[in-house]
């Protein structure tokens, strides 16, 4: 459905995208996951024909983003990260307006938006600017869907949205997938990755890895431990100074660490670490082995890529 070949884009000296290539199958939810500044929005803007890439080609449903932008614009939906509907028009008027300019009517594709629009219905006379953050996103999604696009681009749809609305939104995306719409979603929340069919981990303008979320987790080879004690900041410093430490970073209320491969069997290396930390007077120490999450994979891939680029940068 989407074919991207060697796309690159520079803003002045900043390389926003460096030689990106990937393909998206029809009817899948494709997640582009990376921290702020990874280049997600730039990539979206190129694919939605808002800006031109410096190099490379991209095709959507066989249409070239340079030449066939009119066709593309008629057949895609784009929900930008920033709320960009008319705040001085009401919910109903916004929807009506976007339906009109796509030469369709709300009723035609009402089944697509029915579930969300029902939640918005009590506020349909309210101006869009006066809606809550979650409601705004729902309205934006309705407007992006009203012409039943072939491909829907969602740029950070869940940023600034409460956990309940986030869950609802993802449930909705799943329904849209069932309708046969191809979805490209970007997010900086790693925990949302599991809801995509395939994900691309993105950092500093290039893809680190593209695979199903499960495969990415399976590829994580190191042993991972969660460590915690009563003095977390001192613990982090001490862990970093531990000779056999491979990587270590704060993760929620614990620290995730992995040790260098040459460290011997599991029990011994755990005990060695425990002794080392106890000697440094850490109380309430807990070290447990855990399964890697997407974020751990991202951390590992990011560290590896910065090693490959010979730019010793620490990513926390």
């Amino acid at each position, binding site marked *: 459905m989407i074919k991207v070949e060697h796309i690159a884009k520079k803003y002045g000296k900043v390389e926003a995208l460096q030689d990106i290539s990937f393909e998206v199958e029809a009817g899948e939810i494709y997640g582009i996951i990376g921290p702020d500044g990874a280049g997600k929005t730039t990539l979206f803007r190129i694919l*939605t*024909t*808002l*800006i*031109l890439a410096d190099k490379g080609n991209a095709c959507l449903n066989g249409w070239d983003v340079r030449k066939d*932008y*009119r066709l593309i*614009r*008629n057949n*895609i939906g*784009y929900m*930008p990260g*920033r*709320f*960009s*509907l*008319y*705040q*001085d*028009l009401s919910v109903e*008027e916004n929807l009506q*307006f*976007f339906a*009109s*300019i*796509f*030469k369709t009517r709300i009723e035609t594709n009402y089944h697509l938006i029915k579930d969300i629009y029902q939640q918005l219905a009590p506020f349909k006379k309210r101006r869009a600017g006066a809606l809550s953050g979650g409601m705004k996103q729902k309205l934006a999604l309705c*407007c992006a869907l009203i012409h039943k696009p072939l491909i829907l681009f969602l740029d950070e749809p869940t940023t600034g949205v409460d956990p309940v609305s986030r869950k609802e939104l993802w449930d909705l995306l799943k329904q849209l997938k069932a309708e046969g719409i191809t979805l490209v979603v970007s997010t900086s929340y790693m925990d949302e990755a599991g809801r995509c069919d395939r994900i691309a981990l993105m950092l500093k303008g290039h893809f680190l890895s593209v695979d199903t979320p499960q495969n990415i987790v399976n590829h994580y080879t190191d042993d991972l431990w969660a460590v915690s004690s009563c003095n977390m900041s001192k613990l982090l410093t001490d862990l970093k100074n531990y000779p056999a430490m491979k990587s270590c970073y704060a993760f929620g209320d614990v620290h995730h660490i992995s040790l260098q491969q040459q460290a011997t069997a599991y029990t011994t290396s755990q005990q060695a670490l425990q002794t080392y930390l106890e000697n440094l007077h850490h109380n309430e120490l807990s070290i447990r082995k855990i399964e890697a999450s997407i974020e751990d994979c991202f951390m590992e891939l990011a560290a590896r890529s910065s090693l490959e680029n010979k730019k010793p940068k620490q990513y926390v």
Partner: protein
Amino acid sequence: MLKYLLEKEFKQFLRNRFLPKFAIVFPFAILSIFPLVTNTEIKNIRLCVVDNDKSGYAYRLTEKIKSSGYFILKAVTTNEKEAFELIESHKIDIILEIPSRFESDLIKENKASVLISANAVNGMKAGLSSAYLSRIIADFNQDIRIDLLQSTNQQLSPAFGITPLFRYNPLMKSLFNMIPAILVMLMSVVCGFLPALNIVAEKEKGTIEQMNVTPVSKFTLILAKLIPFWVVGFIALNICIFVAWLFYDFFPQGNLLTFYLFAAVFVLAMSGFGLVVSNYAKSIQQAVFIMFFFVLTFVFLSGLYTPAANMPDWAQLLSHISPLKYIILVVRLIYLKGSGFTDMLPQFFSLTFLALFFNTWAVLSYRKRKM
């Protein structure tokens, strides 16, 4: 397509808390206040007479000046120093100094002189008030010549007077000069700046991005932005014409349709200029500043305050790109002189050229797929 866009734009315009009221109130307010405060006729000039002579003639001269209506006699003194102190403390604007022996010199030697000192901190005021004063004194001179000749029963020696006739504005009312200019400025604001700011506002809010991924063509989008302001601009223009007629009994001598035609071309030029600005500006702040800069330049180059012929050559050359220059002239011609379309062909071509120039530039500077 355009229909839906227009519907949206009008909805937004009418829903705006400020703009619709502004469009109605602004013409009223600006026309009721502006022509009065931009009056270039100077009145109530505060005068001090330093009368060293205290003769009958000196008294008559002072009375004549007083009765002219332009001057307020603030003080009569014999002390020159005192008069200057009054100027320094900002209590008077101009001094007329009558020397001692003024009357006797005049009779015996047939000549005498007086001294006018004006406070030239406000140069225009000083120039005009001393000119008024000189004319009154010249007039007075004529009076006493007749007096003296009659008393000596001599023949009147030949002399000639000058009677200027001000065609098309017989009373030289600066009001009639200002109103056309104000009409034009109003049109530039409503039809040139407001749509430009509106477009930049969509850029700033990010809504233009959402529009750019729709099949709506850029041309339609911009046209939909401009049309409502053209409509509002013409409503405001008509309010202005009405108010000028109501308040000042001032109505175009010429054909109103000719006026509308020129206004339409001018509006096209200004909208085009506004679009150029909106293409370069990234935020409303930037747009406002760019606009402010060019509007000031356009106004000063337009010959509104000083005739373009007074400007240095390079400025005269530059003044050709100010659409205001042509339209202000045209509006004055139509209002005061009643000129017909054929009389103003050069202005028409210039305005048409500028309209084409700015709009072409706007199209070229708009890079279709780069924000």
